């Protein structure tokens, strides 16, 4: 799965947690989850739980801390997919 494919999948994971649907449609690797998508910081754990289920991976605490914008999310997910736990 390449970065573009991961981004398309990631949109679906993020969708339930943002009211900014128009912003979500146009996300790119620089989009910040909290500042741009107005996602409640408490919901970042829900996004991680959903991403784990979506990609069948495990995201540990250290990796999770990096997931604050779309680019970092894709970094973490693509790394985990390529090296399954």
């Amino acid at each position, binding site marked *: 799965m390449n970065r573009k494919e991961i981004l398309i999948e990631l949109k679906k994971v993020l969708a*339930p*947690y*943002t*009211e900014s649907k128009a912003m979500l449609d146009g996300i790119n690797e620089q989009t910040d989850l909290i500042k741009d998508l107005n*996602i409640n910081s*408490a*919901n970042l754990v*829900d996004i991680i*739980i959903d991403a784990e289920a979506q990609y069948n991976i495990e995201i540990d605490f250290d990796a999770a801390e990096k997931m604050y914008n779309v680019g970092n999310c894709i970094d973490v997910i693509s790394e985990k997919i390529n090296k399954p736990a």
Partner: protein
Amino acid sequence: MNNRVVITGLGVVAPNGLTIPDFLHAIQNGISGIRFVPEYADLKFNCQVSGIPEFEWEQLHNYITETSLYGLKGKGIAYGIKAALDAWTDAGNEIVSEETLWETGCVFGSSVADTDVIKIAITRVDAKESKKLGSRVVEQIMNSGITAYISGRLGLGNKIINNSAACATGTQSILMGYEYIKYGMAKRMVVGSSEYVDRYVFGGFDSMRVLSRKFNDEPEKASRPMSLSAGGFVPGSGAGALVLEDLDFALARGAKIYGEILGGSTNSGGQRNGGSMTAPGPEGVIRCIREAMADSTVTAADIDLISGHLTATIADKLEIENWSRALNRTGGDFPFVNSLKSMIGHSLSAAGSIETVAAVLQLKYNFVHPNLNLEDPIPEILDIIGANNLPTAKVDKVINTVAKANFGFGDVNSCLIISKYKNN
């Protein structure tokens, strides 16, 4: 400081109506919301009927944000949000305020935090999967979840309190809101209570042998307050909510006024002299009713209607005796008495707020709603108050003043005196 407190908004989630117009129609026409619950038969409950609102999750779409609705599993919270926001808009307010409303608070009661959500947590944690619980469990299993959702949505900045006093919860929450406005601590309060009776709470009452069990085949006959053939109460779910306002605050914004809370009281019999964990002591009940009248400066003769607690257990007879002693009225001189539980069952902590909404509607629209299933009143009740005060069909009559009381486990009592608003 003794500010007058008026009622400017109503909301309800009841087994026989999810909107105020539907609920008004139901209570005027004696429409029952009691249904057979197949799950309760599977669970081998003695009582297999319940009052369950016809609530669907999509009904909340216009109430809270989609992100907030996603992951909301607690039905007690859901009922409370719907009732409270309906009351808020009924009072002529917008749902979303940009600024915090410092003059407005919320007292919303509940008896049990949502056990469906607790069950999800128990199942996950016991399966060693606590990391999959996510962020939405704690906010829904805390008792104050209901007030957190309501106050957050409306931006309320005054006192935000979750109260709990078993079956006296709903009347108590209204009383607390009334007191904050009366004594100048708030200008406006969103008050009420909600209850979602799930299988575990239901099972606890079923095991106490206090629930109706002889009418599982005829659900609408199962809740029979004051009836000789009553054999226990029917648990129900729902929520009721009111917007209370300082009179001047309401007048200044041109709000419509349903009625006025004249006064009230909440106390306990101390579980002494006939009072116990499960039974209300007569002395506490009588004091509570008399204190409510003293607080409101009405006399017993002013009361046109008693909206009783009257659950359909052996306590009904004693309750009527207590009312009669508290008011010092008997026979044909006694006020009308009705029990909404004959239509919707006993929704525990929500009972007081739903019944208060019904009481306010009877005041506003000048009627006394019927008591269902009262073809055979308990003879000792008739000895005290006669039959004419126990309507089995709607009575059209000017109602100026209603006494509304509820009595809960722990020997706690709450009584409100509500009247028409008179500009004097």
